[in-house]
């Protein structure tokens, strides 16, 4: 098994520009240190119609109420500001920004525990001997020679589909044929229950695929499960 850079088509070149936007890095930095409630705020605001911050402050008294710790309130305010910047990019662009953000957040959390012998990379394919290469690259990979990991990132549970699940499970199975344990996971910036409802109906094999949902993003930084 080996990792390889994905060929860059026109879509990838455009998307790379979004991935490199400082707004993506700033929002991801804030979300690395966020509570689950702040991540819920980010999801709601980036999905939202209104971009007036006071509206969102009123909607989340658990983060902005008068009795909330000033430090948490300030951090939540910065999460909200970045989220509304994404929302203000417009309908066409914001979905790409949201996707890029989930990938960046995933990569940063993984990088917090990965050492130099397990570099965290983006947009990589996985090649197996005698197996036709997959079309779609993995969003994030941890390229350890002994405990490699591949992650597919989604903004919402609606993004969980048979193609994604099949690709992840195929990779896991092919690695096993080479006596290698490949951790495969789908990372979704959506609630665990909504993801599990989606998975319950999925006919594609996914028993060996980890789910990282909104409530459990910090697991990425801990690893091991």
């Amino acid at each position, binding site marked *: 098994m080996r990792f390889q850079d994905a060929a860059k088509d026109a879509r990838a070149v455009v998307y790379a520009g979004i991935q490199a936007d400082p707004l993506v890095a700033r929002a991801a930095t804030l979300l690395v240190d966020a509570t689950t409630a702040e991540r819920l705020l980010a999801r709601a605001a980036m999905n*939202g119609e209104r971009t007036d911050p006071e509206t969102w402050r009123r909607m989340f008294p658990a983060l902005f109420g008068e009795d909330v710790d000033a430090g948490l309130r300030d951090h939540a305010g910065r999460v909200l500001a970045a989220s509304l910047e994404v929302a203000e990019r417009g309908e066409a662009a914001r979905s790409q920004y949201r996707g890029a953000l989930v990938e960046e957040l995933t990569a940063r959390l993984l990088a917090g525990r990965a050492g130099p012998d397990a570099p965290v990379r983006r947009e990589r394919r996985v090649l197996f001997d005698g197996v036709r290469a997959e079309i779609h690259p993995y969003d994030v990979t941890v390229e350890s020679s002994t405990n490699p990991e591949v992650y597919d990132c989604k903004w919402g549970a609606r993004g969980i589909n048979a193609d994604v699940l099949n690709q992840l499970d195929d990779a896991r199975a092919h690695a096993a044929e080479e006596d290698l344990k490949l951790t495969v996971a789908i990372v979704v910036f959506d609630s665990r*229950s909504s993801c599990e409802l989606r998975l319950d109906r999925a006919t594609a094999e996914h028993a060996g695929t980890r789910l990282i949902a909104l409530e459990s993003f910090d697991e990425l930084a801990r690893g091991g499960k």
Partner: protein
Amino acid sequence: MTDREQPTPATAGEVVDRAAEAYSALAELAETIEDEWQYVTDLVDFYLPGIRSLAEPHPGAILPAAQVTAVDEAIAEIALVEDPHKAIDWLSTFPHVVGLALGGDVDGAGGERGPGGGAAGRPATGEDDDSPFGALRGFR
């Protein structure tokens, strides 16, 4: 609700009824995506009881103004949604926003068929202990 006036006092039951009604209307919009009909139905079957459970055990209790405002703002937000795809995103998100505002959990009342094949949703302890309500308990 978009002005900054104090909301009319409301009971937990009244606020939750408003949220449930808005959620049902959102589901009607989302159902227009035929390919997602099953998922929309699953979301509603799971979350609508969860929303309603937020009024328990004291549906007649008068809620603090901030909680009423928070839920009414969430209702106003989803009332603006016109795109059925976005409606599906909000079917997943709105219950948790309302749950956080009211200090309750919408994941535990989805009937016998909880997601993940469990009897009632999430595990009682462990990885999902960092629910949105963890913020209220002060941990990150």
